[in-house]
């Protein structure tokens, strides 16, 4: 807030477009003084007043309550009014400002949000009052108000909607904002319209629970989590898509959602140096994702892990016959009863071994153990964290090389949801020969593969368009020969996409663990 006599100049690289006169959008670079305290909205207003009155954007309250000035700043949706210019310029004092993605542009930074409002109205956002209201107010406990998790504070700015990967391919999806509003209504004991809000909401099964909406919400709200809460209401009513019902039943009966025999769970490890963690002390407990147990392609992740740990001298064990599905996807699907049962059972098993260290193959297991197993007394790591540390400590050394250009796809459950961005990249960069290139959407702006939140078993309403296809095309455009990831779900989705798109000759999908073993 204090003055500065040596102010620099900031460049705003703004995407301009007036469909009446311009053939296509084009960037224009405009300069303003870079003073402390100046917001991006201040800078835009200054340009409009002093340099180019035709620069067009919405604004009103200028303190983050009206939701008008949402725009895409350096790839992330935010409110221009509460974003300081100095925080968003790069080393060249440049900031890139674009209209919200996934919605039509009206002019410059003004977008057409009609699909956003249509979805909002579709869930009937109004409270439907009871026939008989009390003379005074309804009694509502402070705890009930708290249980709304501030959903009532949504300012309808559209940041989540425009960032949502499902919305990017299908405007029929209910969208995070409308899910949040539906949650607000159905959670309110005063509301008399449960069915009205929930009737037209079946597209919520399309949500991949990537939590990009949570990541980009300027008010720190949790529309992503709400998808599971709403689904749980449908689950209670038995309104579950058939294929998801099959997965849930299998998770209950077979301890895995893939309708495989529990007895075959450890078949992937035949002949490999893997201990029974319940029978003898181990350095670390390896928790293998159901997909990595049963899917031939994903099994290679687990096999690579065991090989590599053996070479590093790490005594690795599993829960043996007590290893069962972690329940992460059951929770995201909204089968809360089943999930709680699974948590209870697995917590008991996981707390048995002597070791304090558990390493997961999948970001999904990592996420659920870290955040939703309240009584787990273990240090939980995703394997990329564990392996990155072993490399840094010199316990894993590379003898070979992987002479390839590699790009890395951040799994949502690892990156966006748990902020593990650096370790996977550190591993790739330590492998001799690898040239690591980034896709345009990386780290916190990564594009979901489309496989989470039950989508592994549910085709969804998004006919024709696939996030995994878009992601693979983006990877190919970097010139990478290998699309690396660190999640059995992502591996499966992306691998299928490469095959479907017939791009096998251009790019190969690999788990980081496979590359580690290749170079060992």
């Amino acid at each position, binding site marked *: 807030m204090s003055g500065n006599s040596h102010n620099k100049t900031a460049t705003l690289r703004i995407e301009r477009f007036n469909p*009446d006169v311009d053939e296509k959008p084009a960037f224009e670079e405009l300069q303003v003084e870079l003073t402390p305290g100046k917001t991006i909205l201040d800078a835009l207003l200054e340009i409009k*007043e002093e340099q180019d009155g035709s620069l067009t954007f919405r604004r*009103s309250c200028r303190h983050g309550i009206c939701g008008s000035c949402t725009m895409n700043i350096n790839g992330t949706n935010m409110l221009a009014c509460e974003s300081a210019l100095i925080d968003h310029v790069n080393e060249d004092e440049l900031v890139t400002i674009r209209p919200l993605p996934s919605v039509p542009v009206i002019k410059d930074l003004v977008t057409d949000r009609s699909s956003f409002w249509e979805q909002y109205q579709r869930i009937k956002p*109004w409270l439907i009052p009871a026939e008989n209201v009390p003379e005074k107010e309804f009694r509502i*406990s*402070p705890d009930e108000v708290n249980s709304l998790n501030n959903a009532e504070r949504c300012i*309808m700015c559209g940041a989540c909607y425009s960032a949502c990967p499902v919305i990017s391919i299908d405007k029929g999806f209910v969208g995070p904002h409308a899910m949040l509003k539906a949650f607000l209504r159905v959670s309110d004991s005063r509301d008399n319209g449960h069915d009205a809000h929930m009737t037209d909401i079946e597209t919520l099964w399309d949500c991949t629970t990537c939590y990009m909406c949570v990541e980009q919400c300027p008010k720190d709200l949790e529309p992503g989590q709400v998808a599971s809460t709403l689904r749980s209401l449908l689950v209670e009513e038995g309104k579950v898509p058939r294929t998801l019902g099959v997965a849930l039943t299998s998770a209950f009966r077979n301890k895995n959602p893939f309708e495989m025999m529990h007895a075959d769970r450890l078949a992937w490890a035949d002949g490999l140096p893997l201990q029974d963690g319940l029978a003898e002390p181990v350095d670390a407990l390896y928790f293998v994702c159901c997909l990595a147990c049963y899917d031939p392609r994903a099994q290679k992740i687990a096999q690579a892990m065991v090989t590599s740990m053996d070479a590093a001298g790490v005594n690795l064990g599993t829960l043996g016959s007590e290893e069962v599905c972690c329940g992460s996807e059951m929770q995201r699907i909204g089968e809360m009863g089943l999930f709680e049962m699974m948590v209870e059972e697995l917590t008991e098993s996981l707390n048995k071994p002597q070791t304090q260290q558990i390493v997961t193959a999948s970001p999904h297991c990592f996420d659920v153990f870290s955040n939703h197993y309240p009584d787990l007394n273990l240090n939980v790591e995703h394997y990329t964290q564990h392996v990155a540390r072993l490399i840094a400590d010199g316990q894993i050394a590379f003898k070979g090389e992987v002479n390839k250009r590699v790009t890395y796809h951040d799994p949502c459950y690892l990156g966006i949801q748990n902020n593990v961005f650096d370790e996977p990249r550190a591993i790739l960069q330590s492998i001799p020969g690898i040239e690591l290139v980034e896709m345009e959407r990386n780290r916190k702006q990564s594009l979901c593969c489309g496989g989470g939140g039950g989508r592994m078993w549910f085709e969804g309403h998004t006919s024709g368009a696939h996030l995994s296809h878009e992601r693979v095309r983006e990877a190919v455009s970097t010139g990478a020969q290998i699309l690396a990831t660190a999640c059995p779900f992502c591996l499966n989705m992306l691998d299928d996409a490469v095959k479907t798109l017939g791009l096998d000759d251009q790019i190969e999908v690999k788990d980081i663990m496979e590359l580690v073993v290749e170079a060992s």
Partner: protein
Amino acid sequence: MSTETITHDVIIVGAGLAGTWAAMIASQEGVKDIGVLSKIHPLRSHSGAAQGGIAAAINNVRPVAGTGPRGPLEQIPAGDSAVDSIETHVFDTIKGSDWLGDQDAIEILVSDAINIVYEYEHMGCVFSRTPDGRIAQRRFGGHSVPRACYAADWTGHMLLQTIHEQALRHGVHFYSEWYVLDLIIEDNICRGVVAMDVLTGEIHTLHAKAVMFGTGGYGRAFKISTNAHANTGDGVAMAYNAGVPLMDMEFVQFHPTGLYRLGILMTEACRGEGGYLTNNKGERFMEHYAPDKMELAPRDLVSRSEQIEINEGRGIGPDGQGIYLDMTHLGREKIEERLPQVLEIAHNFMGVDIIKVPVPIQPTAHYSMGGIPTDAHGQVIADAEGNPVVGFYAAGECACVSVHGANRLGTNSLLEASVFGRRAGYSIAEFIKGGAELHPLPSDPGKQSSERIKHLMDDSVGDNRESVAEISKAMKAMMTNNCGIFRDADGLQAALSNVKQLQNRFQNARVMDKSKRFNTDIQGALETENLLAFSEVIIASALARTESRGAHSRIDYPERDDENWIKHTIAHKNGGELPVLSYKDVNINWEKYPPQERKY
């Protein structure tokens, strides 16, 4: 530009609390052909920026006995006696208004308060709660008991979302991003409006049996303001230009706690929850100005006190123009629970953690007590005698009933917009159902608006071209310096000639954007023209009022003059000349609420 006519029974301009309440009620009463026009999306309306609460004597909490005026509050146990009453709320509001509020209207406001808060609650508004589940209440300035019903510090947002959604439920049709340019009144009968569809730039005439304005306040006439960019008083200016008078325009509220230099609102609830104001010596200076109420004196008094501290060299900040708002003794838990929005705002805009350090603030233009004169049914009146403008209604901040008189109490504005919006809805429904007619339009009603726009885009002005932004800045600085918290004849005279010069300069102002599609440059120019139109009325009304009352403080007339000035200013447009002023009696119940000395 083409002029296409759209017809509705009712046109409502503005979709904040007042306009939306009116629309919902009229629709509920069976008037289905309603169009609500808003220059921004309805949910972006500035009602949503109100933070601290809505006043109603619902008696849910009381001060803990023996803890004094700033002590903790507790829920009133079932069966225990009430601490608040309609009479107390009425008296507090009258005293707050410095006896310029109409007491009959204040009684309506306060009586309706209780049921409108319960109605919001029944419609789904998420209020904060007492431990036993009733609506929570807190202290506010000028209110003698804790009566501000609140939803953390998001109260306006919650009320706006609630009422907007209920209006949608009742099938109200909103024209989002339609900017109204002109109000059509002929022979004292309102016939519709002229508006621009911002998206296409097309001008439309909207023909209606009744028009209601809920267009909000005019705080953007000042340099430092809590108000949104949208709060340019368009409705007030349009009404004035159409021959409707404006009432009590000299009464502009300066909020004591806008963020230093930025003006962004830090709710009065900061002080309601126990925050202090301190000067550069660390003194709680309010003990010199309002020893009893301290920081919870009414806003006019607190802002004046701050300004005196600043003027006498006890301000803070590099230019000494600030004051500290200190909440560090409230503790993290209370601040996170009750004041989450100001916590976030202070962090985002000042880099200040209010849990740990005081935040710099300053008095800031906030609320327009004056506006379009109406009766208690939202019916706009044409003169001091109270004759109606047929078919024209107004409510909320753009209107002047008057319930706030010379100074509004905090939490009475959400209340006013709701209560009088609702009342306007009922009277509009009655008017339509009573056989209101569609009166003929004048020929080519959109012509004037189209010509204004053409003029603003015409480049033939050459080197004489003026910048809209520069004129706007000069006007706001002038209003702040000469027509701000303290005023005198010299400054106001200078302001009057200055605003005339600026109006003349504006004749040569031109926009840079010549396109039709979503032209916010044109809109900004028209808004500035509106600011220039009614600012003149603020100044002229302030110059004429040779006394100090409420928010109007004349250095040259420091005393309240009940002998001569218990009356409302009525200003009519007089061509290009200064407004013609006349005066209207204040409704006072001389037996019950006679004027008293105003001490806190």
